[in-house]
């Protein structure tokens, strides 16, 4: 199903989606984020600082609450997510492909009811990238594209004064149907323009991973390479790359105790980070990844080797956030290229 939407009617479409809570990019204090739509929605954003992974996989989520009166068995109350339908506008193709990878882990690979319950109520309306939103985009190198619809329910393409809409899933179709006569049938000229905008988008220069297909094997052969310490030398061990990544998903589970008599609290899942020095600290005191090189190797190999071995696709989707936001310039494209070049 393909339609045309006048840019001025975008807000009307969102308003018509009464069964959905709508989110769109908004800027606050210079930071772009997906926020509930208040007033006019805008889709003139570079990419958001954080990817939309937080919708299905929030940074903090309560699994269950517990209460135990002394002498009795603890009472657990499961806290399943609400059943609100949420639609996010302005999702870039790299982030949508990130969602596909998150689904592999939490929905296909493991029966995570919390993730799945949120995920099944999400809809992603994407925006094709006519120009790379970042100087560090490299989606083409990892099997993606600025016009990919993988992981999206609807793909929107900016044609200047209007958007070309393509429904990708049944949910996407139903979102577009709700718009009623706000959407018009595309003319042949519209289709032609959309095709040429797409072709131009794909032709835009990007960073490049030199040998993405050879990366899994070459990284595997480079486990003991001294390059890891050299490339990680400046790393400060913060969590920016991992927390901003559309596909990083490690988590920690803790009990947040709120009362002692009776014992009360919540079992909470929070994001964790393999770049924190203590991520692999054992209770014996041993840390198998004691250096920044070991931790850089872990993250890069997870993206370009381990995930590929497990699921047949690179985990990285080329959004470039880890490159642009690293405080000291650790550059995953540079790292993968350098290590795979010297492999074996």
């Amino acid at each position, binding site marked *: 199903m393909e339609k045309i939407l006048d840019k001025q009617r975008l807000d009307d479409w969102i308003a018509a989606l009464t069964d959905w809570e709508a989110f769109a990019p908004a800027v606050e204090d210079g930071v772009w984020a997906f926020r509930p739509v208040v007033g006019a929605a805008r889709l003139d954003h570079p990419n958001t600082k954080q990817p939309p992974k937080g919708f299905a996989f929030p940074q903090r989520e*309560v699994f269950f609450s517990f209460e135990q009166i002394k002498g009795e068995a603890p009472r657990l109350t499961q806290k399943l997510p609400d059943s609100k339908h949420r639609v996010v506008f302005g999702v870039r193709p790299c982030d949508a492909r990130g969602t596909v990878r998150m689904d592999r882990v939490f929905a296909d690979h493991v029966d995570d009811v919390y993730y799945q319950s949120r995920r099944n109520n999400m809809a992603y309306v994407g925006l094709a990238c006519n120009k790379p939103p970042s100087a560090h985009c490299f989606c083409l190198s990892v099997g993606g594209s600025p016009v990919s619809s993988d992981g999206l329910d609807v793909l929107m393409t900016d044609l200047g004064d209007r958007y070309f809409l393509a429904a990708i899933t049944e949910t996407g179709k139903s979102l577009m149907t709700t718009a009623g006569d706000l959407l018009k049938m595309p003319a042949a000229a519209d289709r032609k323009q959309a095709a040429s905008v797409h072709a131009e988008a794909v032709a835009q220069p990007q960073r490049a991973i030199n040998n993405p297909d050879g990366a899994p094997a070459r990284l595997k052969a480079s486990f003991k390479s001294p390059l890891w310490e050299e490339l990680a030398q400046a790393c400060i061990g913060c969590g920016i790359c991992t927390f901003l990544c559309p596909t990083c998903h490690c988590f920690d589970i803790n009990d*947040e105790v*709120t009362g002692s008599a009776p014992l009360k*609290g*919540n079992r909470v899942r929070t994001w964790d980070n393999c770049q924190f020095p203590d991520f692999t600290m054992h209770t014996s005191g041993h840390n198998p990844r004691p250096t920044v090189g070991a931790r850089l190797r872990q993250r890069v190999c997870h993206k370009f080797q381990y995930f590929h071995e497990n699921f047949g696709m690179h985990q990285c989707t080329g959004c470039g956030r880890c490159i642009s936001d690293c405080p000291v310039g650790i550059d995953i494209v540079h790292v993968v290229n350098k290590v795979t070049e010297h492999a074996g």
Partner: protein
Amino acid sequence: MSEEEQAYEPKIVAFLCKWCSSAGSDLAGVSRIQYPANATPITVPCSGSISPLYILSAFNKGADGVLLSGCHIGDCHYIEGNYLARRKIYLIKELLEMVGVEPDRFRMSWVSAAEGAKYAQVVKDFVADLKPLGPQNKLKADRT
């Protein structure tokens, strides 16, 4: 004041130095001085040993007011502890105010072991100043 406001009893966490202020609060007790029961005392060895984390943690756990009390200047059992407290607590007080926490929620006093009446008065005044501010929810953790 509405009924609700009148019924509201602020919870105060009071860090009292063992040698002076905690003894002073004991004296208030044995002297049967009547004063509001809103303060939960925590005895510390010295006002100088109070870490800013104690204060922030008390607010995080829901304290409506935090009181610190130690020996008078020159009388510290550890000689210098209260001088260091005076400096550190000044800084945390300024930081709390800067962030927007009501200044009346945090206070410090010098109460000696002989000043049972003063301790009672300090708590009385604190409760009276806290009541109109209502429950503290700026730094309080939302444990849901």
